[in-house]
């Protein structure tokens, strides 16, 4: 075999290899081209990508897409749904890398300071300013950072109590007579004698537990941080609430986060209430459809017979527009639709039971429909019966881990509640430098 033939064949092999790699690369771009993106672009529409989770995603899929695309027919919404924590991580990664961010993203409002401090989002102060008087102050305040507004604040997620009417009736408990937490606890003790828990808590608590505890803490006008972001020292109320949370475990059904056992207990009547935030109702409805008509709702109990009519909050979203977005105008239209229109608020309420922070929607009689799941009770009546005290979230991702670990330590009986809070406080000061 001559050398020339040899190298000739080799060159051909080399070219074949290159061709194969090229085909591979082509296949890959084909794959990324196939999909709703390509379809939308072919249709000549502007494609808006939006990231959301859970109830918001349900709301968007069920009605926002239709309403919004009906109002703006040249825009096509592409929803990517993922768990809230994955979403937050990915959003952070995309802001850091300068690529891959969606046009609009849902952000867990209490985590917002992490992004606010670092930039990467479009400043919406001027555009949103005109809505200031139409939005609940609590929500408004949480979207502010360094004097600017970074996102649309569509909702507030207050705490309320969903109770099983049949169980209450069976044991002679009248929901209207549960006005204070002491009443609640008394009822809980009655139920406990029959082996029924009046509420449930997440154990192991972790970060989830912090937010559940926070519902109670917030409702009693507690705060971990000052408005400027410094940890409040010698927080007596926090110590008190740690102890309260510890003692209420006796009446609680303890179950891991999102564990199916919660639904089983609820359905079987071993768990009498779902004491949670309002959108929790969506999950209850989905997991326990057979309880429809048998559940009721009542407002958050008070901390004293003449205490302020407050409730706590858990959650709250912010719709932000990453600076990378190439469709900022359309993105703003979506944010505005979701946060500051009655239609948007209706869509989010119907889809995810997110109470609007937009006052015209919150006070709107048309939205205040009876809910058959709760025996015809009107959710907005219950929601409007309470206000939410201001709460200041800072470095919440780390804060909730620190507090959550201490809650777990306390619940496992390794520390006295007061000591657990003191340690949490010390660690917050040390780790966050606030």
């Amino acid at each position, binding site marked *: 075999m001559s050398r020339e033939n040899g190298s000739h064949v080799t060159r051909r092999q080399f070219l074949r290899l290159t061709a194969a790699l090229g085909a591979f690369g082509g296949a*890959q771009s084909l794959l990324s081209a196939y999909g709703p993106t390509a379809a939308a672009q072919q249709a000549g529409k502007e494609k808006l990508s939006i990231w959301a989770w859970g109830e918001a995603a349900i709301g968007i899929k069920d009605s926002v897409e239709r309403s919004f695309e009906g109002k703006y027919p040249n825009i096509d919404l592409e929803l990517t749904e993922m768990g809230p924590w994955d979403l937050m991580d990915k959003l952070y990664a995309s802001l850091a890398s300068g690529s891959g961010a969606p046009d609009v993203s849902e952000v867990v409002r209490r985590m917002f300071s992490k992004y606010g401090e670092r930039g990467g989002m479009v400043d919406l102060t001027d555009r949103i300013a005109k809505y200031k008087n139409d939005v609940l102050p609590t929500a408004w305040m949480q979207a502010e950072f360094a004097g600017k507004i970074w996102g649309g604040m569509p909702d507030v997620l207050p705490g309320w109590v969903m109770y099983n009417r049949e169980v209450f009736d069976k044991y002679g408990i009248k929901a209207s007579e549960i006005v204070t937490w002491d009443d609640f606890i008394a009822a809980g003790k009655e139920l406990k004698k029959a082996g029924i828990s009046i509420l449930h808590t997440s154990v192991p608590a972790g970060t989830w537990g912090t937010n559940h505890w926070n519902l109670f803490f917030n409702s009693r006008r507690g705060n971990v941080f000052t408005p400027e972001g410094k940890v409040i020292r010698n927080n007596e109320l926090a110590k008190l609430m740690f102890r309260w949370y510890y003692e209420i475990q006796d009446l609680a059904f303890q179950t891991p986060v999102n564990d199916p056992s919660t639904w089983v207990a609820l359905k079987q009547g071993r768990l009498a209430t779902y004491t949670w935030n309002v959108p929790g109702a969506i999950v209850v409805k989905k997991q326990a459809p057979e309880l429809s008509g048998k559940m009721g709702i009542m407002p958050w109990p008070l901390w004293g017979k003449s205490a302020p009519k407050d409730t706590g909050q858990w959650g709250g979203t912010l719709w932000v527009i990453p600076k990378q977005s190439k469709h900022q105008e359309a993105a703003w239209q979506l944010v505005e639709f979701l946060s500051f229109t009655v239609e948007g608020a209706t869509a989010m309420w119907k889809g995810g039971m997110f109470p609007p922070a937009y006052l015209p929607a919150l006070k709107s009689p048309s939205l205040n429909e009876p809910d058959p799941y709760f025996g015809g009770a009107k959710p907005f009546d219950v929601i409007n019966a309470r206000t939410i005290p201001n709460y200041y979230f800072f470095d919440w991702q780390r804060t909730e881990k620190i507090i959550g670990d201490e809650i777990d330590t306390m619940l496992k009986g390794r520390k006295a509640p007061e000591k657990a809070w003191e340690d949490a406080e010390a660690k917050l000061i040390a780790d966050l430098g606030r």
Partner: protein
Amino acid sequence: MRAHPSRVPIYLLLLLGTVLTFGPFYWMIASSFKPQGEIFTATLRLVPSQPTLDHYHSLLTKTGFVRWLLNSIVFALGTTVLSLFLSSLAGFAFAKYEFRGKRALFAIVLASVSIPQFVTIIPVYALMVRLGLINTYWGLILPFSVNAFVIFLMRQYILGIPSELLDAARIDGSSEFGLFHRVIVPVIRPAIGAAGIFVFLTTWNQYLWPLILMQSNDMMVAPVGLATLSTLYVIEYGQIMAGATLSTLPILALFLLMQEQFVAGLTSGALKG
């Protein structure tokens, strides 16, 4: 193999081992066919009472699973092909050539085997950002094609090829690259098979890197995608088990078909090490 031990305990051990090994595997498959309410019951239910295909249906239609599986395949295949090419070429050089710096270079390669990959995660992530490869297949394939272990395997295997074969080919007029592709490659096919399976399995397994490097839902690989189903507000266990089953069966089939090559390749690398 030694003084004859009694057979009964051995059979029992084998049985126990098989039950333990297959148990979780069976549980995964069974759960994927159980109706939602049966997956977590207080009493043991070994066989689904009313097997249902619901979870498979909702997995395939409501989640991005098909795309995720595709991504996993592209990632695994792409990495396997590229790393086999790079490593066999380099392994050939280390085995059959003498050149300046050979010892030092090989030592560096060897040392890198013990450096865990997560050390490089942050800078590679930043690099991918700068190269614009975040959320792309290449962004995932390129870092993983650098597999020192495979070079090691290849070198070991090629060392066993008699040099006379190469010299004969040279006399016949072959170029150096021709040596590689006409003499070496056919002979090391078993090593390529084994190393290929090894790389494929390793990349199929990846979780942390794809988690970080892939951002959008439709670029996730199967393990990452399935895990996101577990962090949603309402955990869809049935779907997760269906997805787990679907992403395991291809590998299982592959293994059963290529059992011999795989075992041979695995052990040859280890033995000569």
